[in-house]
């Protein structure tokens, strides 16, 4: 399994997993603010099926970290009521596909209550969703459903890819007065990195993308050359970093932009990179058709049309229900497919003939 360590800073003096960083973020938020409450299925005694909430019930009591009855609409619906009364609920959906029963509450209430009440009743709810595949989960355990949330005004949609972001973005999500769908790439839960729980790194706020890997040779706006931008987020960030590394061998110089949040979307950072490179590939696990990549490609194209040497391409999951474990590797966008897409970015125009694509 690919890990996020590629983005880390070297010697793992204090190696931490993303799971630990997420748990710590909730712990610190609960310690700092008594209105933060965690609820969901198995989040208490068990500490969650991924153990992300481990220890919270013990430290803060069952009332602050509560096992609920097994009903996702009920969980989110009661969280709405709690938020109406001034609490900051952090809700865990056990797996991505098990958030679907809560869809009506999410769309018709969570996303709209602030607007409905002219700002007088914001709902500071964080909906944590372990999402994506790559862990060998059977049906319904590997969905990537971010487009459903992205397409719903009123929701923020956040997906960390690094351990520092897992902590920093989750703290920011809990502190946000707007509801946040917080997508935790479950196959990065056990990725390790150098991170200090006592002095967690400052990270940019929700709504800001970061260039995880600047285009080496051509950085600084020196024009397209043999460079391109990989636009990605969540579990695909490590894949893109690996692809960018591998691409050096082919003579490509790839920037990797980690979106960090899909809503708000950071056009500025993304478009600055694409204007630098002139080419872009969007990479995500979710299915392609109607998925996030369409929006991203379309808005980049609207804004950077005259800088583009080639259409923005997409490397995504196939347009199929998520496959069973034995076949998922064929579905997931991996390094090879990213490199294939890069190769299709119409380099011919600038080629010295004879170099293979």
């Amino acid at each position: 399994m690919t890990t996020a360590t590629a983005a880390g800073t070297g010697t793992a003096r204090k190696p931490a997993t993303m799971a630990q960083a997420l748990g710590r973020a909730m712990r610190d938020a609960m310690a700092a603010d008594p209105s933060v409450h965690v609820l969901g299925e198995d989040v208490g005694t068990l500490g969650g099926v991924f153990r992300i909430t481990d220890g919270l019930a013990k430290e803060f009591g069952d009332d602050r970290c509560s096992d609920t009855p097994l009903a996702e609409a009920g969980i989110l619906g009661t969280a709405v009521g709690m938020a109406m009364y001034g609490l900051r609920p952090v809700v865990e959906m056990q797996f991505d596909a098990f958030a679907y029963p809560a869809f009506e509450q999410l769309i018709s209430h969570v996303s709209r209550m602030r607007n409905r009440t002219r700002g007088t009743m914001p709902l500071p709810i964080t909906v944590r969703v372990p999402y994506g595949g790559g862990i060998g989960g059977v049906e319904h355990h590997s969905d990537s459903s971010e487009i459903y949330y992205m397409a719903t005004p009123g929701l923020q949609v956040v997906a960390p890819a690094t351990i520092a972001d897992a902590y920093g973005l989750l703290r920011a999500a809990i502190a946000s007065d707007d509801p946040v769908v917080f997508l935790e790439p479950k196959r990065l839960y056990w990725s390790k990195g150098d991170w200090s729980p006592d002095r967690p790194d400052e990270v940019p706020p929700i709504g800001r993308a970061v260039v995880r890997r600047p285009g080496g040779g051509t950085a600084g706006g020196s024009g397209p050359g043999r460079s391109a931008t990989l636009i990605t987020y969540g579990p695909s960030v490590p894949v893109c970093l690996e692809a960018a590394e591998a691409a050096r061998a082919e003579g490509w110089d790839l920037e990797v932009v980690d979106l960090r949040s899909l809503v708000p979307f950071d056009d500025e950072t993304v478009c600055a990179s694409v204007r630098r490179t002139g080419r872009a590939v969007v990479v995500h696990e979710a299915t392609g058709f109607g998925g996030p990549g369409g929006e991203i490609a379309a808005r980049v194209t609207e804004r950077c049309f005259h800088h583009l040497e080639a259409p923005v391409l997409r490397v995504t999951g196939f347009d199929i229900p998520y496959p069973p474990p034995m076949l998922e590797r064929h579905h997931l966008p991996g390094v090879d497919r990213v490199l294939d897409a890069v190769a299709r970015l119409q380099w011919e125009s600038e080629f010295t003939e004879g170099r293979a694509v």
Partner: protein
Amino acid sequence: MTVLEQPGAYRPTPPPAWRPRVDAAPLLPDAEPYRLLGTAAAADVPADLLTRLHRELVHGRRYNAQATALTRQGRLAVYPSSTGQEACQVAAGLVLEERDWLFPSYRDTLAAVVRGLDPVQALTLLRGDWHSGYDPHTHRVAPLCTPLATQLPHAVGLAHAARLKGDDVVALALVGDGGTSEGDFHEALNFAAVWQAPVVFLVQNNGFAISVPLAKQTAAPSLAHKAVGYGMPGRLVDGNDAAALHRVLDEAVRRARGGKGPTLVEAVTYRIDAHTNADDATRYRTDAEVEAWRAHDPIALLEDAMRDRDLLDERSVEAVRESAERLAADLRERMNQDPVVDPMELFEHVYANKTSQLREQAAQLRAELDAETGADESEKGAR
């Protein structure tokens, strides 16, 4: 079901008792709806309560008539009337303390008004100028809820949160007979019972979900019989008997406030008007049925009981009617003024801070509006 007789003595070690079994009997509703008016016990209802109920019922009926009239004048986009159900609305509006919360559906503007909300604010959704016309905190009335039964978990969550904070707050949530079929009803009641949340669920069983009669909605002995399945008491009450309703709800609210958990109350009533002004009720029910229910009118029931106790005379009836007319006139007048709507507000409340694309879109609309105004101005100039 006792199709199979429980056989005699049991010899092996019985399985461990792993949970306290509560006794089901006290949770079951009576077979007949609870009633006060028209019974001997009506004599014990405090006179001032009856007077208050009467005043609100008469006002409420007039309010419903006025709101319906406003739909014909194009001043309301739609109005789901509570004519015939005023007793439920009034009792729900009166039974709570100021610090408590009310969770109304689209049909429950009257309850919100009884609770103190300005009717113009209460009608904002139905007028069409914004989705909700009031700050929910001022009167502790949640926004009118349209997606059926979805307000019920909100009420549970709020009541639970209040209890966690140590506040002495009860939530009362309204739902229709149709709404009880939704999954959210089930989940809300279950959470409430497990959490022992201080919440009261009032089902206004008005016999229909738009055109669908109760018999196609449920096969249960009564909707109140659902309560035992969650471990909370279920009460059945005559929904046109304002005094009975007030007493049953008051009892349930006290129970909740006392830490004894939630109650499900089913009020059996009838929707005298069509579902909304847009509905044609003759397609699915007979005039005879409506007439039969008119004979069990909540205002008439109360007035009869008050006359029995000499609590009502022509003068006092007239006085209440007059004040109802004044309210209606005021409502009519204020609703006849065009509300001030600002298209730019569309972008204001989606998030705490506008996203960049909302800023772009707001600028686009601003420019369009300016161009419109500019065109108007120059047209005016040209004339």
